[in-house]
């Protein structure tokens, strides 16, 4: 055997060993296609690409490789078609049609922008394409309409706002006044609405003193910070993300805003290294901030290891929540196909996969996911919150005072609109 072929044999053996026991590649079931083409849509350009888009795409890449190493889905190899989400919603919808009609993908997963998550479902239903929305926040997707072909495998933003309110009151029960500074678009508006309504319901004497609406990617917040310094609210809530969050945090720190008010951010990722200690932060579910038992989750460990191996990850860095969400989407898709194959005894139709997806439960790096609301199309997740604390030994910010609010504490019950649930005093909440 030549050195070259010995090397190849060793490589194949190593790959074989890396496949977990019991997951040897299965033979494709009857009627299976040669490959399962899946579109993966994320921001590959523009300001949302750094904090969300690229990590999400990378996560999908390593997880699809893992699925294929384990025999694919129903014995069929998964082939991703990576697509840029950048651009206005009408361009994104046109791109969806292209993926469905020209690329002939079996499923589309992705969408980070709430605007796109609202624009795509009607087209997905029209073209009968299985679609898994993978990171957007708006709670309106399944609360305003039914979409038989569309699923969302992560929780909507209500968990972030309700979680933030519950956490703020657990740490600062004396809060008197609140103010918001949020980007002027769907995510900012929805986030503030949920938080301020939750605060007023949980503590009726709380006063809203201000709501500021800078432009998305404004970058210059002198006037907003001045106004907050003049008003001195007990709590300042923001749903800023990525560059805007880091910029705001830098300008606010330099001017002493964190000394005057408690600041709470409802979504963070690897940017916590750039935020002042003392800030209250959430991570859009149990992703960056996790409970001790979640840290032991083997899928979570495997995901972090695979991501680090292929795309690099600093020792104390966190992977963006969007990346975890994309893996959840793939886990959901895989579980739905496997359930549908089992039920049909052969390769399932899109309708059979959609039927299997409804109310599905599956495991993910972020724990057990249940498609519990939105008629079985919308997942619920717990909400993790913590206070940033600088660890001099590690030289980075770490989480302190971690609290994980159970999924049924921060999500409305099935069939009830989120804002109605909040206004009615969170009926059925199990905290």
């Amino acid at each position: 055997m030549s050195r070259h072929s010995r090397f190849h044999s060793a490589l194949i053996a190593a790959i074989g060993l890396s496949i977990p026991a019991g997951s040897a590649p299965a033979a494709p079931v009857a009627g299976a296609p040669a490959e399962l083409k899946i579109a993966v849509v994320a921001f590959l350009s523009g300001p949302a690409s750094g904090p969300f888009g690229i990590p999400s795409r990378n996560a999908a890449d390593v997880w699809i490789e893992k699925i294929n190493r384990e025999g694919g889905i129903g014995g069929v190899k998964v082939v991703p078609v990576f697509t840029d989400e950048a651009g206005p919603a009408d361009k994104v919808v046109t791109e969806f049609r292209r993926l469905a009609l020209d690329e002939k993908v079996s499923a589309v997963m992705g969408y980070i922008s709430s605007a796109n998550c609202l624009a795509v479902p009607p087209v997905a239903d029209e073209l009968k394409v299985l679609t898994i929305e993978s990171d957007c926040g708006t709670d309106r997707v399944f609360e305003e309409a039914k979409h038989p072909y569309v699923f969302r495998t992560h929780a909507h933003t209500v968990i972030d706002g309700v979680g933030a309110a519950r956490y703020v009151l657990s740490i600062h029960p004396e809060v008197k006044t609140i103010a918001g500074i949020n980007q002027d678009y769907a995510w900012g508006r929805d986030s503030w609405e949920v938080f301020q309504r939750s605060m007023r319901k949980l503590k009726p004497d709380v006063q809203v003193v201000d709501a500021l609406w800078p432009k998305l990617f404004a970058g210059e917040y002198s006037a907003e910070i001045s106004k907050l310094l003049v008003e001195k609210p007990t709590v300042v809530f923001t749903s800023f993300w990525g560059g805007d969050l880091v910029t705001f945090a830098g300008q606010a720190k330099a001017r002493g805003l964190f000394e005057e008010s408690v600041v709470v951010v409802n979504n963070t990722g690897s940017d916590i290294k750039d935020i002042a200690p003392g800030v209250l932060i959430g991570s859009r579910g149990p992703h960056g901030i996790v409970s001790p038992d979640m840290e032991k989750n083997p899928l979570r460990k495997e995901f972090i290891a695979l991501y680090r191996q292929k795309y690099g990850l600093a020792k104390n860095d966190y992977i963006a929540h969007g990346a975890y969400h994309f893996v959840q989407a793939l886990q959901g898709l895989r579980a739905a196909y496997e359930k549908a194959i089992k039920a049909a005894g052969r390769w399932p139709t899109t309708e059979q996969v959609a039927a299997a997806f409804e109310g599905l439960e599956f495991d993910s790096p972020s724990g057990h996911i249940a498609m519990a609301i939105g008629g079985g199309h919308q997942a619920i997740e717990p909400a993790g919150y913590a206070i940033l604390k600088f660890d001099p030994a590690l030289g980075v910010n770490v989480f302190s005072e971690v609290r994980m609010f159970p999924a049924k504490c921060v999500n409305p019950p099935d069939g009830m609109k989120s804002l109605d649930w909040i206004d009615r005093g969170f009926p059925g909440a199990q905290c």
Partner: protein
Amino acid sequence: MRLLLVVALDGLTYASWLFLVSAGLTFTYGVLRVLNLAHGNLYALGAYLGATLVLRYAATGSMPALAYGLLFIAAVVVGLVVGPVIERVFLRRVYSRDEEVQLLLTFSISLILEDVVKLTWGVNPIFADMPYSYLGRVRLGGINYAWYPFLLTAIALAVGGLLWLVVTRTRLGKVLASVIADREVSLTLGINVPRVYTLAFTAGAVLAALGGALTAPMFSLAPGVGAEVLVTSFAVIAIGGLGSIGGAALGSIVVGLARSAAVYFFPELDLFAIYLIMALVLLFRPQGFFGEIEVRRI
């Protein structure tokens, strides 16, 4: 009274930043009559290079005060390297073509430079805030202000003053005025018009990169940062009048104060303030405050 002081201070500092980021765009248009859609990318290159130099310098633990000089060096390097290349290799071919062709060309350059930034610096946010925080705070109107925006005000005044001096008090200014007034006549007078164009575009590129470099300590940099600035700059110079430095200054002040007042008194209008002002000004003066109505030659 205190509130008015705070509104004025915030408006003034924002106006300073607006002027710094839009001066290059209006200067380039004033001389070359080309609306440079790659202006935001020159800004981004200056910002990224400035941030990189500052971060590397800060890691050495050397004298923080010298970091401010690095921001100017970054701007000059970007302007002197990229400016002449764009003008000599690309723009020179389209001066006599329709505006649409010029816009398409600069837009193409913009897309290329956007990817150059991504290939060079990646997509993760970069933030070099040391020059911003190092200057500390000052208490005005009962609240804390960072000193850095006031430094930008001083630099904006210096840049505006320098441009005014060059245009009105130097031989180069007279040459520029001649070229702006009539390119053909300037050629017959022996003025090296192509050289003037290269010089003017390079100066505009340095100004754009300077706006970026000076912004780097205030903003976290991410892909697409230039596009945002381009839109804002367009609004400012449309209000002031395309090609007018004085117009850019006045436009910046009007927009700065309007936005600051909106944040205080009508926060819902924050997003809309700049465009509301632009619409009102253009409704009554389509050419902007100091713009001139151009006679189309046929």
